[in-house]
């Protein structure tokens, strides 16, 4: 509640971790953790001085550290050819997703990519971005064991993830192939620049001609639909209807489920048309 987390008795650098214990929480940007009461917490493990490079361009793609802030991501200048995040014209997918935060640019300087993913809210735009770009999360258990999970699978429901107690999201890797694709972005909200009620991203692979549609915000967890080529409208609508049953749509104050379903279908079709245009 933006008031002090007054049950917390210690803040410890995550580098000096002496074992995970009950009442611990990772502290990334803190913008969510400090925004609600956390009476179950007694210790915060601060990730801010881990020294992880926020963004690393490698021969495999882009590695985004969990502690990379939204502001750092928004400022990132990608290499030429990464059309998904550096289109020839118009706003980039990174920009579109950053602007989908209900939070202001003043939060961007603190909030982290990893924090937004682990928070696992349907409207988390870093989930939308990294899931749509085929991101793989690197998860590190307290004993140091690593596993690699697609971001789309990290989030399992509203506020829930595959992370086990004490497991840490270290980074997300976006593969070059996805970064070189063409994307189309659509977002719907109940308000002019408000929280997403539906956020859909289409990704057209320029080599294969395949289309991947990532549905977030309207659904309790990310849903991805894959097509070998851009489908016709009927095929797409049927696939969306089949992949997303009625109960998979979020029911909360940010939009009625029926509206979210309608907007999902509508935005999916808009994306299909936009990307189909590009293939001609």
């Amino acid at each position: 509640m933006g008031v002090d987390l007054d049950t917390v008795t210690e803040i410890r650098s995550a580098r000096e971790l002496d074992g995970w214990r009950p009442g611990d929480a990772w502290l990334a940007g803190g913008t969510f953790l400090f925004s609600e009461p956390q009476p179950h917490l007694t210790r915060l493990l601060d990730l801010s001085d881990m020294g992880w490079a926020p963004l690393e361009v490698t021969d495999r793609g882009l590695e985004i550290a969990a502690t990379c802030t939204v502001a750092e991501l928004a400022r990132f200048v990608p290499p030429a050819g990464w059309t998904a995040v550096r289109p020839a014209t118009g706003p980039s997918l990174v920009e579109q997703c950053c602007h989908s935060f209900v939070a202001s640019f003043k939060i961007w300087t603190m909030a982290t990519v990893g924090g937004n993913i682990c928070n696992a809210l349907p409207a988390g735009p870093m989930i939308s971005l990294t899931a749509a770009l085929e991101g793989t999360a690197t998860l590190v258990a307290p004993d140091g064991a690593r596993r690699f999970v697609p971001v789309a699978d990290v989030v399992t429901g509203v506020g829930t993830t595959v992370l086990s107690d004490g497991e840490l999201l270290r980074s997300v890797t976006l593969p070059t192939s996805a970064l070189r694709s063409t994307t189309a972005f659509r977002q719907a909200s109940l308000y002019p620049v408000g929280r997403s009620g539906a956020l859909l991203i289409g990704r057209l692979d320029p080599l294969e001609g395949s289309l991947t549609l990532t549905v977030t915000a309207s659904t309790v967890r990310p849903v991805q639909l894959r097509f070998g080529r851009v489908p016709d409208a009927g095929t797409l609508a049927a696939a969306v209807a089949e992949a997303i049953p009625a109960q998979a749509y979020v029911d909360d104050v940010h939009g009625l489920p029926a509206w979210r379903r309608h907007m999902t279908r509508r935005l999916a079709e808009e994306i299909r048309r936009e990307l189909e245009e590009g293939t001609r």
Partner: protein
Amino acid sequence: MAVVVNGHEFAERPRPGQCLRTYLRERGWFGVKKGCDAGDCGACTVHVDGEPVHSCVYPAHRAQGREVTTIEGLAAGGELHPVQQRFLDAQGFQCGFCTAGFIMTTAALDEEQLDDLPRAFKGNLCRCTGYRAIEDAVRGVRRVDEPAPGQAVGCSVAAPAGPQIVTGTARYTFDVEVPGLRHIKLLRSPHAHARIAGIDTGPAMAVPGVVAVLTRHDAPTGLFSSARHEHPEEDPADTRVVDDVVRHIGQRVAVVVAETEAAAAEGCRRVRVDYEVLPAVTDPERAMSPGAPVIHPGKGPETRIARPQDNVVGEMHEEIGDVEQAFAQADVVYEGTFGSQRVQPAHLETHGAVAWFEEDGRLTVRSSTQTPFLTRRVLCDLFDLPEDRLRVVAGRVGGGFGGKQEMLVEDVVVLAALHTGGPVKLEYTRDEQFTASTTRHPFSVRMTVGGRRDGTLTGMALRVVADAGAHGNHSPSVLFHSCSEPLALYRCPNRRVDGFAVYTTTVPSGAFRGYGLSQVTFAVESALDELARRLGIEPAAFRERNIIAPGDPVVDPGGPKQDLEMGSYGLDQCLSVVRDAAADDTAGAPAPDGWLVGHGMALSMIATGPPGGHFADARLTLLEDGRYDLAVGSVEFGNGLATVHSQIAAATLGTTVDHIGVRQADTDVVGHDTGVFASAGIVVGGKAVLRAAEALRAALLAGAAACTGTDPGRCHLEPDAVNCGGQRLPLTKLWAAMRDTGHEPAADGHSDGTPRSVAFNAQWFRVAVDPDTGEIRILRSVHAADAGVVMNPLQLRGQVEGGVAQALGAALYEQVRIEENGQVSTPDFRRYHLPAFADVPRTEVHFSRTADAMGPLGAKSMSESPFIPVAPALANALRDATGVRFTRLPFTRDRVWLTYGDAVGEAAEGQP
């Protein structure tokens, strides 16, 4: 590593888990405000190493080794920062609570962000202004006037507190340092309805730092109403300071006093309560049906609850004429049921109070209240204190909107102060605002109207159900008021009202801008619009045919109102403004292709004060240095009263407003003041100021005439002297001369708030609607206000714009949601969407040219009322665009899409 704040080093380490906002405020940087507790409102914005951040969600330990700049540190070398100066020049504030955050944010914007303010201000909320004034400030538009001596009235004089507001030095309720202050946290009920069978405070008392845990055993047994009115008998006395039955989730169960907020919170978690859970009822129709759980059983007639056994706290059944016959004689009868939702006042400064003992043992309560004098009255009653042993004072208050015409915290701080013998503070969180303060009453209005093809309105009948929530507080008064002006606005011989205010086991409803008028006006103005369309008459023409005329008696279903007179009439001018707007197709934004376009209007009327008397005292004193001291009871919470009162004084005394110092909102400064509510600030308080000023002018002129041997008729006041037929007697000398001759250079003024006049408003919108997404775009918004003589055009425009913006929030976005178990599920600004910069279109504001016979210098009320016609005007525009009558607020995109689709689907099914 130290935290450097505005160049000062603070070596003390932040506590683990502490946020930067509390670290800064604990060190006296009170310009950093708490608004939302969650990083949404931006009132706490500071710069850390030059980067703007929301300090409420910034972990304080990370500020170590960094430089923090707060609003107090923005001005360099005694010169205001250019952004601070621009906020003064444009008067980009009302209550000023959000202003520091807006200034700190604006100062950090780059060119690209300045070109996209809707995005740049996603993290800043203002509840008062409607953002036009803020945009003007950001763009460097200068709006203020500096009138010549004696010419202040009618000019856009700047608010006297402006320099303090833009520098973060204005002192709001909690911006005080009190040595030894202890903190209060309230344990709140997790059940919608339960009897407290047992309570064990022992484990809480064992928490280090906890000083006291107070329960119903420690609280006075007297029943009171948290509503504040001049006459306490207007409100049902159904509330205890700490009760043994809880009637909503969030009701207080125990009061924990501790050395720190953390210890008090821990104490709350440790209190053991044995609840005997009782059946809950969250729907008012069900609550007044047979067999419903009784929420206030056994309370007798002395509590003034209408029918406790039926959960009806107040009711009215009134009819004039013969409504059934009127409908029988009508060509068209239309009936619809109109729902208005729970809305939070959402003033950015939460409720709260600080209490301490003066050296002489007298208790002072500093509270975020609209009614210091009435709060003192009920506190003295409850705790059996003589009035001279209790002082209630308000600092600058961070917004009210009716929510602070209520005693929600002061009883707790007095209980705790008396029990512990020391200073205490209770400051609500934003969560507590939503779950444990008050909201606008949800209303369901079944409205039947009948009319003839010649344009005659033959009859109006209403069945009104208002959800009071767990306690009655304002409910009967809100119900009665709600069915008065909206019906009295029309000349209609047959009118009937059946109204019920009903208890439910939910968060209480309370006073809210419009005091019931917005909910019933939504029904009346929607129904009349629909009736006109069905009669084939243009809605504005139908209104014109039936509205109250100049000199008409003001008649509601209870009959003619005794002390309500038409002191001026600008309704015709209001109607002209909206008709001209509708006739001009060229103005406003274009509609997107494929969207449905329509326009609509609504009218409203409000009495310029409450019935039964509303009192204000004022005292003006000439000071030794030739300046004036104005003492008046009214509270400044963004209403602009301090400005207008000093304008009235300056104009009367032939001086400029910078010669008038205002002391206000303090039970010590004048005898009595009913409070700032019911649109009484200018017409009652202002009149008392005017009378004091006129009396002082007469005394000063008489004194000067005697001193100089001039005929009083040849004397007049100048800023620093009395001009006695060309000879100037300096005010400093006059002061001395009057004192020497035993004359106090001071005068009193009093006003009793009767008779009352009426003020009018009209709102018009042109909208575009995307039927496939439910999105509504306001293409043009026009508002006409009949406020009598306009005392301060800039401030009045701000009040209207802010009222329209708040009403648009209620019409389009805002809803306090209650789950089936009675739990509020929208306890923060992420889930309860307050209009932000991006959400509010600009509104063209027009004033009627009228002068009121009753109000001071011809002025009328105009802060509450701009809210009232907005929702129905929007509904009528939606109807015009879509052909569908929208009857349930708010018109969120999802519901508009769904309602439109259902209506179109039904229409299609109806085709052969």
